[in-house]
């Protein structure tokens, strides 16, 4: 850039009388020339100007001054009558000071390269004797000789102050500043970490003089990659590279036309690939186990409940349940490259069997016990029961009815396998204590007034309790009833109850009445059974008249006490059957 200062004075066409011009007068001009006009009357005087000791005959009335000159004016008065000349010499000393034309050449900013920046002063000072100055931001004067050499740091900027002082022509002065700067030039620098072929290549960015707009362009085997995020210190390439050496070209572009190039050499290391085999992908806690073998030794197995045996082998017996449990085998080779084989398995909890309602002790002949296992697959549950060490019973199913018919020591072995194949075994024991020996007569018939003693002989360690509250082994009773006796073993608390029925002898009775008359009502035959021979039997109607049947009005039973009367010919209604000493009975004829 060329900077020109042209100072134009506003006195264009300025004229001054020569007589008025004083010696050494300073004239601040704006133009490069200055015209003086002859101060004499041109009608009278012929004026000639002598400049630089030569007369410009062409100039009569005015003269153009271009420099600090001493000029002369010769004024001649010609008298035609006398033909004489009168000549006047005027001498003028002119100090003509023109305004400088400022012109500075300041180079455009360029990427920093270490060189100084040259500022060129092309200004026309019109031979001014005034010396301008350049100062830096601290006010120190900079060496100046038409050019100013400035050393600006990378991406930096400095300010230069220029002063042209003219105290006589103040408006010729100039006081200004210039900004001189360089563009940030990046320095590309990268390093790479050791990378295995099963890893992503990571390049460590150590480039300098970068800014927020810096872009990084890489090229690996013809493939271009670009990263723009300056927050990333490392650049990871999400494509694996096979084993080998690679040259990666990198360009750091500060997006200000300043770039730098670099080449990165990387080595991709070989990986030893491994795998292992798991026989199952589902296991049961504390039930299943496997020895696992990898295809290449030298690695290490890891994972929950994995016991590494070395030589590429491990023993696995899960002790905790879970889903997606990972078992890994990792091998790191001489290049420190590691390969890992992972497999995920599910480990199920084993069913926790609980046998409900089974108590530790029972008594013989207690109510049946309904046992049930807290699971849900009927045909996967089995009961095996032993009694005193001998097989006693077995069944398939969740439930079992334990019938307490036999005393002894029972052992219940419950086996169960759930839907995952996980199994559990539960062994439960119980004792069925024998009942005390107690046997009462079922029934005793007594005669009213009798007092009898009932109950067994007393047994040791047995408590007795009768239904009437007696705690003796035997009691005396004289009243009919159901008497129950409970005998309880004081150690096992097993109790048995028996009942004895005391009743009066029903045969101790007297028959006061023994008669049977049926059917009644009757339409024809009437059968009378008195159990013994009776005579003098009569029938009366309601008016007391005797009824005559087949010519008889008084009847007798046979020797067995049986009498059959046919009253089919009698009128409907009530009749009295008179049986001496027995009673008067109503017979209804229908």
């Amino acid at each position, binding site marked *: 850039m060329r900077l020109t200062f042209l100072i134009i004075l506003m006195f264009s066409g300025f004229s001054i009388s020569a007589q008025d011009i004083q010696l050494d007068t300073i004239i601040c001009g704006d133009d490069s020339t200055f015209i003086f006009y002859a101060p004499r009357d041109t009608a009278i005087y012929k004026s000639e100007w002598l400049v630089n000791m030569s007369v410009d005959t062409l100039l009569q009335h005015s003269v153009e001054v271009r420099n600090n000159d001493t000029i002369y004016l010769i004024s001649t008065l010609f008298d035609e009558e006398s033909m004489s000349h009168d000549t006047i010499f005027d001498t003028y000393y002119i100090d003509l000071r023109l305004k400088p034309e400022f012109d500075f050449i300041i180079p455009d900013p360029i990427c920093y390269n270490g060189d100084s920046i040259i500022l060129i002063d092309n200004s026309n000072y019109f031979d001014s004797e005034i010396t301008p100055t350049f100062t830096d931001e601290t006010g120190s004067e900079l060496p100046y000789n038409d050019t100013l050499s400035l050393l600006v740091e990378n991406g930096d900027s400095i300010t230069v102050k220029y002063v042209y002082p003219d105290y006589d022509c103040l408006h010729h002065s100039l006081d200004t500043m210039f900004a001189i700067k360089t563009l940030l030039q990046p320095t590309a620098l990268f390093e790479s970490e050791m990378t295995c072929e099963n890893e992503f290549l990571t390049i460590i960015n150590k480039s300098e003089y970068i800014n927020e707009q810096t872009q990084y362009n890489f090229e690996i085997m013809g493939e271009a990659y670009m990263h723009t995020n300056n927050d990333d210190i490392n650049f990871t390439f999400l494509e694996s590279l096979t084993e080998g050496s690679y040259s990666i070209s990198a360009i750091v572009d500060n997006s200000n036309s300043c770039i730098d190039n670099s080449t990165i050499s990387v080595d991709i290391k070989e990986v030893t690939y491994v795998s292992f085999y798991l026989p199952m992908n589902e296991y049961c806690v504390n039930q299943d186990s496997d020895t696992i073998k990898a295809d290449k030794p030298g690695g290490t197995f890891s994972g929950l409940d994995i016991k590494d045996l070395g030589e590429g082998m491990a023993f696995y017996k899960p002790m905790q349940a879970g889903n997606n449990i990972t078992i890994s085998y990792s091998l790191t080779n001489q290049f420190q490259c590691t390969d890992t084989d992972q497999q995920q398995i599910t480990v199920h909890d084993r069913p926790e069997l609980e046998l409900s309602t089974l108590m530790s002790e029972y008594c013989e002949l207690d109510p049946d016990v309904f046992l049930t296992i807290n699971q849900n697959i009927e045909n996967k549950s089995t009961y095996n029961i032993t009694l005193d060490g001998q097989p006693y019973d077995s069944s398939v199913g969740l439930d079992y009815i334990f019938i307490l018919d036999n005393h002894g020591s029972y052992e219940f072995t419950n086996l169960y396998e759930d839907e995952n194949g996980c199994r559990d075994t539960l062994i439960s024991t119980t004792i069925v204590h024998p009942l005390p020996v107690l046997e009462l007569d079922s029934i005793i018939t007594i005669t009213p007034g009798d007092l009898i003693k009932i109950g067994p002989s007393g047994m040791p360690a047995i408590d007795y309790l009768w239904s009437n509250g007696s705690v003796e082994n035997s009691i005396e009773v004289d009243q*009919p009833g159901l008497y129950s006796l409970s005998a309880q073993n004081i150690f096992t608390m097993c109790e048995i109850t028996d009942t004895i029925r005391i009743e*009066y002898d*029903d045969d101790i*009775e*007297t028959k006061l009445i023994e*008669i049977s*008359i*049926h059917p*009644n009502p009757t339409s024809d035959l009437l059968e009378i059974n008195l159990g013994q021979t009776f005579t003098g039997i009569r029938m009366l109607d*309601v008016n007391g008249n005797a009824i005559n049947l087949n010519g008889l009005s008084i009847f007798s039973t046979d020797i067995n006490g049986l009498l059959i009367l046919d009253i089919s010919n009698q009128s409907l209604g009530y009749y009295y059957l008179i049986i001496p000493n027995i009673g008067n009975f109503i017979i209804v004829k229908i």
Partner: protein
Amino acid sequence: MRNIKIIIFFLSSICFLFSCDLDRVNLDEVFLPNYSITLGSLQVAENTISDIIVLSDTEYLMAVERNSSQIDLIKFTQISVDDTWDIETENLLNIGEGSIRFFDSIPSGFLIGFQDVNNEFTIIKINSNFEIENTASSFESFVDTFYNSSEGLDFYNFSVTDEGYHLAGRVSSQGTNFSCLLNVNLELEPQWFKTYFEKGVIQDVSSIGIDSFYLVHNSPVGADLILDNIDGTAYKKFDLSINELFFGGESIVSNDKLFLSGIDDNVARTIEINIDNQSAFINEIEIYPVNDFRAIFITRDNILGAGIQPENTDNYLFTSELGPIGSIWCNRYIDSKFQRIIDLEELPERGIVVASTIENENNYFINITRVDEEGATINNQFSENCL
């Protein structure tokens, strides 16, 4: 000798039967109470049980179990207004809530037994001023220790002795029932307890002297009469169960005779038992069929009975005085649906009074029927001669 007596008795009865004037007496001249009145304002429980106690010619006393189970002691007073008989009631005593089992007079007042709302048997002694004198319950605890464990007691009748009362009934023990007798002293404190037969019930009891008693024993296989004493040394059982005899639950002891009433094959029957010679004589009533019956031995040495005669869908009340053979007189009341006989009592020379229940649309009310001692009735379109 015995046969002569029977013949004389029989002939006398025949003569009496043919000589009696069975025409109705003239009420205008005698003006004996004669009515059949249903107390519509006194709604009672379907199975209310009581005895009717004659306080005077015009006043009776009954314990009534209302349909709300409230038991009250009520005095019934007959009045005559403009030759029309009516009955007024007066609630004398609120006894409690429950189901009446028995109510009758005792020498010092009245005794009532009932199952209370907690199914506990309670007896209350009421004095002649109709005030509660003594109350006793919780007899199970006594029975539990004196006899055997019991789950329940129920008593249906009682008899009086000089030293207390015999309560006849049933005990539930060890899951079955036994007929039983409980003796309490005059302060109603239990003294002793006896049982008899399984699945039976002592329906009634009559005391003989201090420690002997007759028991009417009913069971599914029949009825028996039992003579017994405290220690059982007097025990005798008389079989009355032929022909499925069923007793209605009334026993009367008179000297050496015992009169029982009951129903056998829907025939009302009285049985006169001669204790001395251990014989029985049956007398049946010419009303058929009969589904409830009570009888009393009256001062004229006859038996007076009252019962219910079903006919089609109706139930009639009949009252009858029994002669040696058949009834001397018999009245039947057909204006209401009679359900049960509560009790009947004789008012010597003034007639009889019968308390019964009637049913009306599943509600039950007390009916008081008064008949003069000759069996005459007022000119009532709903009464008729049932002979």
